[in-house]
């Protein structure tokens, strides 16, 4: 359609001078002259956490977008410098509490790399089970948030109900619903009994059963397909250029998964497949995660079946009971000092590659510097890029399809 414009000099109203606007005044004035809307979405967003997106709309179409993250910044990296290595474990899993398994694992792996600790096989399996449980939990959580954004209330309730199964299993393993702080350097805090393991396997069948209903009512619901298909498309080249990570990168057709590329823990001992999409649109991004859930279910069954017997705490750790850290936690970790140097671990968290870097001065019991690069932060740029040219009504659909989690990005 041809655009008709009248060349009349339009001056922005005087009020603009005293409005508090967190973007350059020029941006607003230019939008005014071009007859565009500037819409602030957030920061008190009804979806997940807090983030402001500043949009420039031409009619209903987004022409420009400025993200305004940082509303839930907690200076986690600085806080970590004032806590001992072991005290940081509850801290570092806070960015994304549903995904605690992967966050905890990433941090502990960085410590283990520094201390060159060999982790017992059984502990590795338990860690992988925890990581996969929290991956399913996070994907379900994101699916629920996506459904809320699309106005589908049942699509919100079903994943959150099913997540309760995951949380139940996590409670049985760690003793708490989320924020397990269960993985410690050299193993896990407690052994998991056989009963619980079998229950996890039974849970996966119940999960599958319920997810089938979820699929019928939400995943293949024509309104969902209509809202997400061909919306917020990011091409393969763009995705690589903008540094998108995790399932969102795979949705664009890039075959990259840290669990396959650099297998850690028990990922190379079990049989599973990488999920790769093609179109890079919102629906593929969602479906990739849906399929990852079924892969995780498959993994959980194998892990439960193949778990070896043995200790769960490494020989290198001062622990008096190798099945349960209780009673020797302080002796083992109270005065942990890492040798001097820089240690990095890369983990495939639910939303993408998660990087922990610990810089140690070799003397103190606290890290000299802890760097956390979270997946949400990495794909924020790609998220913003995929918004351009879409409709305002699609903002929430795209937001949901990215599973963007402000507390995780802000750290």
């Amino acid at each position, binding site marked *: 359609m041809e655009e008709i414009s009248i060349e009349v000099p339009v001056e922005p109203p005087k009020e603009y001078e005293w409005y508090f606007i967190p973007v350059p005044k020029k941006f607003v004035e230019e939008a005014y002259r071009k007859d565009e809307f500037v819409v602030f979405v957030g920061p008190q967003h009804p979806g997940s956490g807090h983030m402001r997106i500043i949009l420039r709309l031409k009619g209903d179409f987004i022409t420009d977008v400025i993200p305004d993250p940082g509303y839930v910044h907690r200076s986690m990296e600085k806080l970590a410098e004032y*806590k001992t290595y*072991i*005290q*940081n474990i*509850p*801290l570092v899993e806070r960015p994304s509490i549903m995904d605690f398994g992967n966050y905890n694992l990433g941090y502990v792996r960085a410590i283990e790399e520094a201390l060159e600790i060999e982790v017992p096989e059984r502990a590795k399996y338990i860690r992988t089970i925890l990581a996969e449980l929290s991956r399913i939990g996070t994907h379900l959580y994101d699916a629920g948030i996506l459904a809320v954004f699309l106005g589908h209330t*049942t699509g919100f309730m079903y994943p959150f*109900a099913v997540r*309760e*199964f995951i949380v*139940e299993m996590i*409670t*049985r393993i760690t*003793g*708490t619903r989320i*924020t397990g*702080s269960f993985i410690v350097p050299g193993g896990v*805090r*407690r052994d998991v009994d056989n009963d619980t393991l079998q*229950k996890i396997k*039974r*849970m996966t*069948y*119940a999960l599958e*059963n*319920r997810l089938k*209903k979820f699929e*019928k*009512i939400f995943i*293949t*619901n*024509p309104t969902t*397909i209509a809202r997400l*298909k*061909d919306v917020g498309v990011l091409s393969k080249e763009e995705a690589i250029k903008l540094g998108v990570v995790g399932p969102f990168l795979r*949705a664009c057709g890039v*075959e990259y998964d840290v669990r396959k590329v650099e297998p850690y823990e028990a990922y190379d001992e079990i049989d599973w*497949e*990488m*999920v*790769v*999409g*093609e*179109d890079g649109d919102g629906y*593929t991004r969602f*479906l*990739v995660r849906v*399929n990852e859930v079924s*892969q995780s279910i498959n993994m959980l069954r194998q892990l439960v079946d193949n778990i070896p017997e043995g200790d769960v705490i490494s020989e290198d750790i001062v622990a*008096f*009971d190798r099945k*349960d*850290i*209780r*009673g*020797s*936690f*302080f002796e083992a*970790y*109270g005065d942990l000092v890492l040798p001097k140097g820089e240690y990095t671990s890369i983990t495939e968290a639910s939303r993408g590659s998660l990087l922990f870097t610990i810089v140690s001065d070799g003397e103190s019991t606290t890290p000299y510097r802890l760097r956390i690069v979270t997946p949400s932060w990495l794909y924020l740029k790609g998220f913003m890029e995929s918004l351009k040219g879409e409709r305002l009504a699609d903002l929430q659909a795209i937001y949901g399809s990215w599973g963007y989690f402000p507390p995780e990005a802000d750290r």
Partner: protein
Amino acid sequence: MVRIKVEKPKVHKSVALHIKAITTAFKEAISPGTITIHYPRERRKLPDNFRGLLQLDKEKCINCFRCAHICPANAIQMYQRENKYYPGIDYTKCILCHFCVDSCPTAALKPSKIHDVAFASLSTMVLPPEELAGEPEMWREDTVTVEYDFDGDLKMIKRKEVENLIVEVEKPKRPEFVAGAAFPENCIACRICVNSCPQNAITFKLQDLQTMVLEIDFEKCTGCMVCIRNCPTQTLLPFRREEVLKGGESDEQG
């Protein structure tokens, strides 16, 4: 590798999907898979290792400060009681990570299944050691305990019983330690160990004006290692109790 490629559904397919969604909703409306637990009247069965509020057994506490030292949230403060120090917990800060429980060498700090407590004000959330023992004042409306189990689908096992929220915890497996003077020559006679010992196991007496004798009573020593951490010159080190006793016997024999 799983590859995902979705085509836009055709009209007849779309109608089928509509019907599928609607029938699912109708099915659920008729026989719902409700998973709700009617909380105050029913209670979820929690595992024994549940990380709820903390319980303190003052009898077992050896005043070793381990819990206060390890606490990531600085929620534990030691309170002086009859010349000894016991932990008190500030629940405004506590994150229930239970590092303190795992650090406690004598299971004096125990977990419990209590997770639903209301405090009248912020100041009442700071609990001194006396208030940490036993169940808090509770109104329990629950008569039914619900356990989640899975059998193809979720199975909610409802039992007419009231769950005991206090958990019995065994003493953790760990050898007993005692503090011994490993390098007596390093001692600078500062007597900090004497003052810091919560059990009064280290005593000193002046032989004459210039010579001081320090003595550790292994019977009294609980191995809390406070003296070892406080000693400025690494005079004291922990020894395993059985090794010490065996050594003593062998000395007698020799």
